[in-house]
């Protein structure tokens, strides 16, 4: 006798030559070209530099990295997979599977730093610290509440962009700080690879959020925007306390907070919203900005300069292939 229930639904085979959204392929290409593994970074060159940090500085660094590991773990195991359920296009699901995997690579990377530089007992202690840290646990819970399968697809994306583009930065600050003082420079290279990936993740999820927002009513759009700002306020409160706890000892708290404001505004921009924090509160220490994007400020632009003149040369003939696709 034939089974009377509906046959199991089978997904359609994905055809990358029929795109509904060009952004999916664009981001797929960027993410796959950027693929990396921690083995690529010569972390052992930081062993001497590590030994020159004080015990307190070492403990702080390990703790910060376990905190970052927790966020990557959440995004790998829960965040990206839960976004896959809401994907509008099959290509979006593929991009999210890449994002999920890279989060696992990031989480793995911190353990590579640990096994290269630290004692097992110190690392175990730091993982215990992060599991007990009220601020880390509180921010994780706020995000995970939105990731529940029942939550709205738009709210999940808001939470995800805040994790990718805001919550990491209280942690990323420290290796950038060390790097600006010529400490742990190889570790900083590894962190910069992570920062680059997270920037694309935040941009892409924010982009998909904006596409989703176009499909709902004006009233819902307002509701989601109110939700986003309220969540950011709640997360910021936690981040401010976490920052004080970590960085008061080094006297860096105010500087880290400016970095948080700057990144919170960028997270909002990824969602298509306006900035929250005024520019005056986003003035990040130039040494940190230089550590974030080394070499990017060597060429001064015209409007920021002191009115220095430039020479207009003869323009070259250009063809498509000249432009490095």
């Amino acid at each position, binding site marked *: 006798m034939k089974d009377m229930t509906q046959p199991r639904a089978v997904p359609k085979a994905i055809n990358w030559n029929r795109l509904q959204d060009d*952004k999916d392929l*664009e981001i797929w*290409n*960027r993410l796959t*070209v*950027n693929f990396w593994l921690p083995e690529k970074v010569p972390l052992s060159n930081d062993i001497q530099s590590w030994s020159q940090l004080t015990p307190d500085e070492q403990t702080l660094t390990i703790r910060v990295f376990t905190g970052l590991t927790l966020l990557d773990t959440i995004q790998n195991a829960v965040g990206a997979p839960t976004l896959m359920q809401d994907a509008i296009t099959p290509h979006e699901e593929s991009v999210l599977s890449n994002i999920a995997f890279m989060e696992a690579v990031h989480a793995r990377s911190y353990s590579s730093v640990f096994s290269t530089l630290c004692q097992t007992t110190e690392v175990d202690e730091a993982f215990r610290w992060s599991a007990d840290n009220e601020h880390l646990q509180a921010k994780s819970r706020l995000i995970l509440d939105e990731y529940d399968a029942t939550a709205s697809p738009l709210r999940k994306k808001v939470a995800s962009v805040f994790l990718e583009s805001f919550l990491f930065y209280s942690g990323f600050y420290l290796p950038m700080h060390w790097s600006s003082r010529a400490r742990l420079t190889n570790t900083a290279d590894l962190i*910069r690879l992570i*920062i*680059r990936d*997270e*920037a694309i993740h935040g*941009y892409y999820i*924010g*982009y998909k959020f*904006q*596409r989703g927002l176009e499909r709902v009513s004006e009233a819902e759009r307002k509701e989601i925007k109110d939700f986003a700002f309220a969540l950011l306020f709640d997360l910021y409160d936690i981040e401010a306390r976490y920052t004080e706890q970590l960085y008061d000892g080094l006297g860096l708290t105010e500087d880290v907070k400016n970095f948080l404001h700057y990144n919170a*505004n*960028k997270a909002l*921009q*990824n969602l*298509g919203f306006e*900035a929250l924090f*005024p*520019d005056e509160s*986003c003035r990040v220490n130039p040494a940190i*900005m230089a550590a*974030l*994007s*080394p*070499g*990017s400020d060597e*060429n001064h*632009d*015209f*409007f*920021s300069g002191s009115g220095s003149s*430039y020479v*207009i*040369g*003869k*323009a*070259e*003939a*250009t*063809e*498509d292939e*000249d*432009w*490095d*696709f």
Partner: protein
Amino acid sequence: MAGLVFFSSRSGNTARLVERLGLEALRLPQAGPPPELDAPFVLVSPTFADGEGRGAVPKPVIRLLNNTRNRALLRGVIAGGNRNFGATFALAGEVIARKCSVPVLYRFELAGTETDITRIRAGLARFWAAQESQTCLTQA
């Protein structure tokens, strides 16, 4: 003041910056033939580089500038990007500047900050005034 031309992908960052400038501006189409321009212009372009810096300049911008007449009218470039991409931050500006021998006027992140908006507005006004007096001098 002469023209402002920009490209923005559907993320809308560059479009939001240009909107806040409050200046008249022409948006390049995502697909299809580029417009034929007839006055000097400044270009605002986002950056889409991969980790190696490839593909920094968006294709609609390339199509615009492959037209010799358009390219001859380009006076400067303002580039968007994200400092999280390190050395490739706002790379489109540098690539276009090198190709077309025009200056990079300004670089901004994502949709820009209030400070960026103020600086770009003031900078463009000064820039076009300087261009105009230069033209007058050559003609005198």
